[in-house]
């Protein structure tokens, strides 16, 4: 995928629907960058040792980094989860938006809920309210399609699908 006239270490790949430019930096790591619709160049530098830098290029000088944030492994996971998790719910929303009578909602599990630390099956959510729990969002991670044996933790967010009444009932159940 090398561009003619450019060093071989450059390549353009299609990560999602955005034109991402990838550059190998020998001895340092790998740099990915792309231009947003509003014409800001943004990128991620993945160091060989696992450190990740998220950075924004200057508007006056398209080659210079204007500001940079250095992330540890955990922080990078969290950030990607925040972006990924939100996008996941949006995708579901869009997919289910056209079905009348079906709602999708994100329900937080209160830290003091009786179900915090219990498995999902203990809530009997489906039998009691008819609502399906399709994903868990935890510390930025998405756990899709949790089973009855999946453990719930206080602070988790449950992505649920059902009737508006059912979801209200589940919300009340979780708050107990």
């Amino acid at each position, binding site marked *: 995928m*090398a561009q003619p*006239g*450019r*060093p*071989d*270490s*450059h390549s353009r790949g299609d990560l999602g629907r955005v034109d991402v430019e990838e*550059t*190998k*930096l*020998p*001895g*340092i790591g790998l*740099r990915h*960058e792309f231009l*947003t619709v*509003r014409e*800001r160049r943004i*990128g991620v*530098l993945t160091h*060989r*040792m696992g450190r990740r*830098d998220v*950075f*924004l*290029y200057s*508007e*006056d*000088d*398209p*080659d*210079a*980094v204007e500001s*940079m944030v250095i992330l540890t492994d955990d922080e990078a996971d969290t950030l990607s989860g925040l972006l990924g998790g939100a996008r996941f719910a949006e995708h579901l929303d869009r997919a289910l938006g056209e079905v009348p009578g079906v709602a999708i909602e994100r329900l937080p599990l209160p830290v003091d809920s009786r179900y915090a630390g219990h498995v999902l099956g203990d809530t009997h959510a489906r039998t009691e309210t008819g609502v399906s729990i399709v994903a868990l969002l935890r510390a930025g991670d998405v756990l899709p399609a949790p089973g009855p044996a999946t453990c719930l933790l206080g602070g988790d967010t449950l992505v649920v699908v059902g009737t508006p009444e059912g979801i209200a009932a589940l919300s009340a159940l979780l708050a107990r």
Partner: protein
Amino acid sequence: MILAVEVGAETVGSHIAPLLIELGAVVLGLAILGRAAHRVGLSPVPLYLLGGLAFGHGGVLPLTASGDFVEVGAEIGVLLLLLTLGLEYSASELVGNLRGSGWTAPVDLVANATPGFLAGLLLGFGWRGGLALAGVTWVSSSGIVAKTLSDLGRLANRETGSILSVLVLEDLAMALYLPVLTVVVMGGGLARGSLQVATAVGVLLLVLVVSLRYGERLSRLLPADNPELLTLTLMGAMLLVAGLTQQLQVSAAVGAFLVGIAVSGPVAIGAHQLLMPLRDLFAAVFFVFFGLSTDPSEIPAVLLPAVALGVLTAATKVGSGWYAARRAGVGKRGRLRAGLTLTPRGEFSIVIAGLAATGLGEARLTSLAATYVLLLAVAGPLLARCADPLANWMYPPLPGREPRLAG
């Protein structure tokens, strides 16, 4: 029998004490110098060289007891410098860089080696000395440049790719240049010389091909999960291969570099971390040793040529760096940054000068190289720092631009 052993032990003991004291004082002295360098944000290399000058012949505190150890330590320092450099690259990165590089490497070579070669001729070092000096002025210091990029927060800048590409190409070229230089400075006829150069090229190609094909399999043989065994294995392999390549007169340093290239993948990253402290210690010893073998009283005589050569080759480096960045589609300000960032010369120039010194025995060449590296190792990072203000002055940002909301 017992008496003899005791006498032996005593002589060893009386020899070891001053050696330890002297060595300890030197290494502690280096630590203090390194600390000072760190505080003002400089590379420690020039300070180590200054330290070596102080301890050497005609210096303030000449070393007497630890000379042998320092000499062997310096040799190991060179090998470790090149081994860790090789560990940073994989064979596929090297070949990939070479393929996409076009005229970058030739432009870099011609622009920066020619002034050194001509200076060598003008100063009466002969063509052999000229060839050595050409190498000294040619190669940028990978160590100093990489550190400057990271210090200035420019690792993610778009011109960084072309800067690193130049460094990689130079390092790869060293694998051919060092054997040639070894042959040339050692004398020996044209026939024998070309045979050795051919051997060098053959060994280099062999290692590149083997590590491209079997690098991962070879690396998997290494005890990745056992730091102790990994250190011993790599040190052993490095010394053995370096010794063998030296025997073939291909230059031990190139052997060590090739060992580093052959090791790839996660093991290489782990090994790099593991060997860093060892490398730092022995490389410091190497820079001191080079300072030791330089006579400070020679420096005033070579100061003027060194400054002139420094200014000239800083300028040519800006030119070749500019060219490399332009090829990669980087804008003018980025090109200026790339050029100025590449100006520092350092460890490699000293390795080359050291090699030439042992063969040619030209004291003035050593002093010239030491002074030259002292200048550019200090001035180079400062020039890199000045790149942005300079670019603002040369290419002012367009005035009256609509301020825009971020995003």
